[in-house]
């Protein structure tokens, strides 16, 4: 049995396209009240063919042309290349027609004046539904099959299709929304609005520098940048101190430090801020004690720059620690030993060898801290006070009392500009300069211990910090189980029962107020995790194993969504997917899609790292044995990728559970997420419930991670070498 040649699978796609064009509901129908098919095949749930013929949507009939062309290409005899060209043309034409109709004809008529004057009439249509999306998908695959028949990617239709699908979805769900934001800023209902754009983007409220000369606040852009720089520097220094202690001293609790590095992953981003309020807020634990013992008046000092920066440093130091521990371990000990044999003292060695080798890694860690701070939304939201940063300002421009979408778009542009600049600097300049001195050869040297003053300094900085972090987490775990933290320490389960009450009379009924959001979150997270892992690992496979034109830009595109702050994604999704042809806001689907494309880069990285350890000739051996690339992927690559699959599954699941910045724009009454529910409770002052819920989330996710780590750990015990065996006899 030979692998299916292009025409055979192409026939399937053509059949599916025709079926969905003729039979399935073309437009989006609301399924929340059950499937309503009155009037099918015409009516609201009618198919494209029926509604085209019935006269209400005549433009849908134009799609018969590409369908016919595709059929011609597949039925006709002739040279493979020529038929491929015709098929690709049919697919491209179908895509173009479908998208052009979708963007030109909106809910209320023509979207463009020139189209209205050209075609006349006032046609209207809804967003694409099941039939529309499926037909779009089939046209895309027909295009890919055609290109494969033309010899793209060694004529491998599976690979061309995978590239086509990933590129198209990235264009639709990353580039299209982002350009929508940018166009919103310069393009109003009456055409270009450059004047307003220039005024708005140079506004004093964004770029003012009053804080340097007076007591007024600086512009929101400067606030954000100052905060980012401060947090970046502090995180880097603290992370370095931790990394040095963990690798270069005989510090007894090194293992515990690894746990410390897991914490930020499972902690919803605003929880640290919340805990800080409960300690240092006006009725916080410490504030109360200070007042009662020393009569220090309660104040709001924690709200603003101080509070946000403390919260962010607490939250992001572990990330910087994880990056820097790799850098510190990566310095070959023999370099330091070489220096010492040249009669340099420990201190001189540290100053002239170790530290210079660390420098690019430090710059890298700084940039990551900077980007994280810029993108953070939860902590500024709960701790901001009068201190505004871009991410919260964008949020209030969309949901606040004065809704101003173009202002939101402009702020989003500024924020995006900053992060992309930092991201670019990290990728282009520093990323390549990191001195990884780990080579294939074993290095028998021993890392030299730290000079004593530095060891002491590191200890002095890190130990109080660890204690402080531990106190915060202890507080989070305890805080949900006392009446009111700071005032009334009577133990109670009241908050927990309010949130998670289960009525057992007559079968379990989940009456607690948090259940809905928890179930919705689980549903979305469980759905998005496998999809995220799949698209991420597929991308990694394409990047590491296939060569095709435009691979570099493909890679950049897949990493881009990682650099875009969540708030910007949120705003852009609202702007882009609120109107046809992709009308998705208010559905659970938009949340799933949002998570997929935000968390996909992690899957890509994990996949690339593992794939680089798998010998390419394994794929080739499978290919020469007659397996197509799809079979090879399934039977050879996937089994060997298992650790990467698990890692990206866990990571995308946890991120979906804990993220807040993008989803806060996208949640709806039906799909409220756990994090947005908690933020809502914080804003309503119900700290007890908020903290009890957060604690539950943290414990739940810690359990998930530990469970997965155990599962992965057991797999390693099996006698199966991951990399190819070294063939020495």
């Amino acid at each position, binding site marked *: 049995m030979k692998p299916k040649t292009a025409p055979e699978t192409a026939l399937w796609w053509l059949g599916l396209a025709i079926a969905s064009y003729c039979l399935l509901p073309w437009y989006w129908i609301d399924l929340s009240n059950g499937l309503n098919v009155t009037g099918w095949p015409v009516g609201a749930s009618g198919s494209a063919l029926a509604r085209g013929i019935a006269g209400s949507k005549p433009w849908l009939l134009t799609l018969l042309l590409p369908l016919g062309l595709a059929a011609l290409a597949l039925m006709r005899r002739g040279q493979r290349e020529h038929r491929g060209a015709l098929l690709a043309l049919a697919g491209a034409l179908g895509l173009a027609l479908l998208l052009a109709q979708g963007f030109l004809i909106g809910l209320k008529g023509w979207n463009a004046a020139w189209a209205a004057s050209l075609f006349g009439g006032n046609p209207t249509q809804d967003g694409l539904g099941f039939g529309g999306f499926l037909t779009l998908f089939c046209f895309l695959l027909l295009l890919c099959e055609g290109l494969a028949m033309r010899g793209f990617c060694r004529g491998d239709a599976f690979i061309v299709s995978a590239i086509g699908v990933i590129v198209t979805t990235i264009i639709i769900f990353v580039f299209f929304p982002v350009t929508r934001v940018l166009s919103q800023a310069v393009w109003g209902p009456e055409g270009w609005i450059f004047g307003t754009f220039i005024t708005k983007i140079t506004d004093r409220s964004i770029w003012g520098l009053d804080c340097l000369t007076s007591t007024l606040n600086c512009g929101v852009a400067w606030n954000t940048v100052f905060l980012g720089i401060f947090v970046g520097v502090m995180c880097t220094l603290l992370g370095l101190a931790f990394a040095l202690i963990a690798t270069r001293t005989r510090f007894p609790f090194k293992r515990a430090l690894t746990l410390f590095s897991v914490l930020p992953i499972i902690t919803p981003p605003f929880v640290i801020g919340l805990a800080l309020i409960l300690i240092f807020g006006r009725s916080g634990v410490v504030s109360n004690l200070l007042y009662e013992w020393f009569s220090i008046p309660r104040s709001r000092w924690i709200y603003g720059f101080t509070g946000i920066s403390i919260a962010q440093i607490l939250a992001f130091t572990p990330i910087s620690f994880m990056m820097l521990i790799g850098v510190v371990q990566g310095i070959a000990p023999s370099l330091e030993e070489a220096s010492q044999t040249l009669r340099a003292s420990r201190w001189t060695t540290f100053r002239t060898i170790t530290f210079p080798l660390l420098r690019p890694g430090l710059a890298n860690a700084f940039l990551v801290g900077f980007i994280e701070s810029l993108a953070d939304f939860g902590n500024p939201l709960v701790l901001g006070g009068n201190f505004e940063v871009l991410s919260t300002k964008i949020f209030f421009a969309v949901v606040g009392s004065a809704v101003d979408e173009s202002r939101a778009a402009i702020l989003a542009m500024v924020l995006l500009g900053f992060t992309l600049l930092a991201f670019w600097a990290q990728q282009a300049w520093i990323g390549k300069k990191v001195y990884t001195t780990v080579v294939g050869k074993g290095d028998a040297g021993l890392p030299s211990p730290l000079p004593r003053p530095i060891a002491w300094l590191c200890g002095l900085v890190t130990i109080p910090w660890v204690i402080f972090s531990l106190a915060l987490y202890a507080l989070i775990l305890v805080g949900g189980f006392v009446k009111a933290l700071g005032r009334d320490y009577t133990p109670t389960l009241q908050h927990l029962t309010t949130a998670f009450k289960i009525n057992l009379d007559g079968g379990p009924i989940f009456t607690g107020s948090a259940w809905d959001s928890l179930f919705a979150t689980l549903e979305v997270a469980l759905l998005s995790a496998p999809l995220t892992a799949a698209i991420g690992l597929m991308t990694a496979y394409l990047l590491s194993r296939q060569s095709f034109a435009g691979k570099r830009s493909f890679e950049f595109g897949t990493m881009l969504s990682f650099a875009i702050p969540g708030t910007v994604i949120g705003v852009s999704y609202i702007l882009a997917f609120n109107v046809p042809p992709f009308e998705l806001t208010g559905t659970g689907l938009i949340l799933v899609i949002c998570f997929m494309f935000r968390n996909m880069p992690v899957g890509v990285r994990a996949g690339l790292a593992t794939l680089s350890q798998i010998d390419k000739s394994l794929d080739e051996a499978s290919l020469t044995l007659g397996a197509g690339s799809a079979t090879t992927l399934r039977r050879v690559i996937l089994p060997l990728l298992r650790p990467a699959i698990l890692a990206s599954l866990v990571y995308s699941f946890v991120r979906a559970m804990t993220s807040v910045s993008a989803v806060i724009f996208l949640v709806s009454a039906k799909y409220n997420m756990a994090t947005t529910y908690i933020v809502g409770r914080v804003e309503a002052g119900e700290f007890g419930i908020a903290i009890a819920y957060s604690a539950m989330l943290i414990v739940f996710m810690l359990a998930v991670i530990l469970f997965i780590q155990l599962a992965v750990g057991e797999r390693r015990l099996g006698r199966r070498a991951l990399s190819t*065996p070294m063939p020495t006899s």
Partner: protein
Amino acid sequence: MAKVKAPVEFRNVSKRYGAVTAVDDVSFRIPAGTLVTLLGPSGCGKTTTLRLIAGLEMASAGRIFIGDEDVTALSAAERDVSMVFQSYALFPHMSVLENVAYGPSVQGLKKADAEAMAAEKIRLVGLSGLEKRAPSELSGGQQQRVAVARALVLEPKVLLFDEPLSNLDAKLRRRVRDDIRQLQTDLALTVAYVTHDQEEALAVSDEIIVMSNAKIAQIGSPHALYEEPSNLFVADFIGDANIIDATLMACDGRLGTIQLGEMLLTLPHRGAQPGTIKIAARPDALTLSKDGEGLPGTVTKSSYLGKVREYTVKTALGDLFITAPGRSDAFPPQSHVVVRFTNSGIVVLPH
């Protein structure tokens, strides 16, 4: 094996990567049932040529035929070709049996049938009893045989070897080399074999294709390549050779009169034009003696290797590399000697 073996043919095949040409307008034919070696230094394009046969690389120009079929546009999975990889490329998550049964099972055969076919080939390579082992639990030589069994299981029209011995130690190499040759002649397989080791190539091949700088330098039987190299590259690459400048004085039929310093030699001129030419002399074609007629010289280096003695002798024609039997009398460095040219092992290089 039931299937008819097929020849492989390249017609003006080129492979370019951007500005780099890895294979440049190459044409050759591997007759059915023969073992043909692609030999050359690293980077000469021999592995790329092999991968072009397998379909792991696609030709930029030219056509490739297996049997009567034009396979130029077919992917690796669609070609009836198997390959034994340099690293063996055994699937680490499968047992020996699963590895060998992989080919038939992806062709859609039932598991039992696939495993029966696999077991037969495992027996053929002499590994019966090790079916359940993981590849990492085998020695290098055993892994190599699993790789061969896996490549044979589909009874391909063409079998490809990419430097199959490079990961084995020297002793094992000779045995495995003989095993491969034995298997190939027993089953009358069409085999393309890549190596950079000229001795290995001479030992196993029916025919050798010597490649240099993406082009074919010479095609011929091992004997023809060694005794009648058609150019300087082949003469130098296969076996050692002293390349000496000479003058072709006159041609008479097949033979020519060649002036070499003070000496005159009569050798086949092989189509060279009168004038300055180069001749290649094998180290064992030159003999040393204390005195008598010949080219005088001084020994500058002398080493004893057991089977032979190696000398470097400084003469008017340049430094000459000469071997003598190990049991002959030794000439210490600085001793004056006379070099004589024997009748065999010396050829005119036509180009």
